[in-house]
């Protein structure tokens, strides 16, 4: 006689499990909770990572940003505490002296501007002057029109690319705004594009609040002279930004008589470092998630094993009767292990299903304009892996109790209850 898997076997298993419903339920709950936590945490972790990545969206991950600040060290006869500014010449200086750099692009920004279209007003906008190559640093997500180009800049055209919020406030009726004029500080600019970017990582404030104009126009309109505020650059493929930053700092500082060791005077932001930190952070978070999840799951499985042990002891007579009327030890072993597998699987599967439902709810909650922000859902194969892991754990949990059940002799059934 061999172990059969048919409806009969299954009914036997169900009968045994349903006989003690609340106990089976509570036992299964341990496994359920373990799987639920594991799936929920791993799905959630994935989603949050994606959401964070969304924040970085459209932002070159190997960018370095330079920003001039008050000096903190005396240098070459200059006292500390001096204010200084980078100039337009620094762009060419870097570009020429450091062939490893891909793009070098300056920006200027003016905060708290009010943008007017007819009698509609959008306040707290940021006017930002850039060049065409700035698009390589912070990629615009253009809903309408185009970005600033080199001709705009060379001819100092009064054109602008507006951010999402500015667009929504100035053009509540929607539609393509290109060619329409808006007014900032008494000057009229025609809209040439709408930038739909909304990433959380931005330079000079939120992209949604931006009105981007050609930098030459900005310098002229706001009398900025030769000064620039930020100098952004990216490295060519194959270069590590951290290796390049000391030289960039050196070049800029020497040109302006600033101590190259003065870290306060020239603030340097290397995004590659930040991305690295975030990446490592999520690796750590993932590790902890699996540690907690698997730990909880293991505790649940130990619970199943424990209860099966109690159950076998309780059912000594029943198992003895079964043996007396012809069950082989192997059949008994099979039954106990099957019970354990079924209990573990059913509990685990409901854990998976429940976590999938919850994660689906989270996805719905974070959805915006019907577009999925980040996939929180557990990947299909992770769920499959979890399911097969559960089956294995079921066998492991059932093994000890089953071996004990196998040792029950039919004579035990005859002893008076």
């Amino acid at each position: 006689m061999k172990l059969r898997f048919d409806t009969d076997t299954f009914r036997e298993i169900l009968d045994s499990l349903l006989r003690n419903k609340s106990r089976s339920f509570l036992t299964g709950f341990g496994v359920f909770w373990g799987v639920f936590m594991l799936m929920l945490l791993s799905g959630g972790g994935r989603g949050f990572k994606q959401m964070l990545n969304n924040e970085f969206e459209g932002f070159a991950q190997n960018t370095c940003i330079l920003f001039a600040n008050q000096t903190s060290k005396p240098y070459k006869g200059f006292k500390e505490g001096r204010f200084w500014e980078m100039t337009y010449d620094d762009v060419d200086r870097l570009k020429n002296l450091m062939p490893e750099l891909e793009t070098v692009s300056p920006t200027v920004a003016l905060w708290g501007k009010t943008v007017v279209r007819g009698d509609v007003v959008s306040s707290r906008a940021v006017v930002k002057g850039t060049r065409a190559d700035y698009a390589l640093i912070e990629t615009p997500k253009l809903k309408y029109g185009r970005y600033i180009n080199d001709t705009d800049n060379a001819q100092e055209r009064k054109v602008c690319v507006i951010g999402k919020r500015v667009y929504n406030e100035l053009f509540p009726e929607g539609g393509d705004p290109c060619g329409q004029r808006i007014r900032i500080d008494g000057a009229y600019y025609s809209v040439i594009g709408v930038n739909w970017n909304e990433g959380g990582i931005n330079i000079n404030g939120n992209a949604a609040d931006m009105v981007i104009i050609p930098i030459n126009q900005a310098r002229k309109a706001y009398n900025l002279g030769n000064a620039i505020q930020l100098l952004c650059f990216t490295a060519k493929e194959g270069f590590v930004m951290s290796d390049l930053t000391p030289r960039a700092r050196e070049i800029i500082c020497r040109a302006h008589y600033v101590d190259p060791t003065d870290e306060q005077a020239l603030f340097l932001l290397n995004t590659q470092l930040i991305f690295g930190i975030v990446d490592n952070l999520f690796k750590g978070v993932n590790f902890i998630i699996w540690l907690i999840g698997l730990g909880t799951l293991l505790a649940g499985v130990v619970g199943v094993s424990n209860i099966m042990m109690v159950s076998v002891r309780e059912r000594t007579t029943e198992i003895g009767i079964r043996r007396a009327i012809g069950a082989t030890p192997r059949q008994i072993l099979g039954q106990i292990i099957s019970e354990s597998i079924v209990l573990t699987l059913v509990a685990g599967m409901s854990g998976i299903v429940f976590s999938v439902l919850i994660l689906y709810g989270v996805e719905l909650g974070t959805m915006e304009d019907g577009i999925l922000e980040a996939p929180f859902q557990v990947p299909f194969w992770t769920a499959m892996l979890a399911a097969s892991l559960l089956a294995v754990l079921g066998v492991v949990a059932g093994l000890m109790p089953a071996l004990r059940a196998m040792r029950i002799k039919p004579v035990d059934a005859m002893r008076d209850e």
Partner: protein
Amino acid sequence: MALIELKGINKTYNNGQPLHVLKGIDLQIERGEFVSIMGASGSGKSTLLNILGILDNYDSGSYHLDGTLIKDLTEKQAADYRNRMIGFIFQSFNLIGFKTAVENVELPLYYQGVPRKKRHELAMEYLDKMGLSPWAHHFPNEMSGGQKQRVAIARALITQPQIILADEPTGALDSKTSVEVMGLLKQLNKEDGITIIVVTHEGGVANETDKIIHIKDGMIGEIEENTRHDAWGGSIIK
């Protein structure tokens, strides 16, 4: 050859102090006999029954069941013999509480791998024989002692065994149901020719059988022929 043939069976229990329970049992039981084994408690009659039922091993001697030597069987072989050759009836009925009467009767066939439908039909047939078909879907705790024992008998019969081993089958029953159950066993012996061995310590029960084997201190004592059912002065049960 006799259906059951025991030669020089010895059995010692080694639970702390060695206990020599069976001291050289020689016994032959022919096909179709209705036998009782009588003895006081501690006489070794239950041990003998366990050995007959292949529930327990013996230390020395030989036990032939239907010509096969029953010795050092694997658990699997033992289970198979029990399943096909022997039907058990216990004092405490030993029905499985969470299964209905018909499911209990089906169980031996389940372990034989008989398909569900056929199993169910057969079980209903045997329950009907016991006059229990209206109770087929009741659970043991909804039935009287006599009914439970009849379910147990149906379960013992369903594999069409050659032997029925009954361990104090009336021990938990009142005298009226005891008579009924013994009558039922007698009928099975007469009509279906099943060999029946009853272990008891009650004279009245033993008197219903055709042969009474007395066992005392682990040895076979007197073997009474009782075809006229007048042992114990033809006493009634209890």
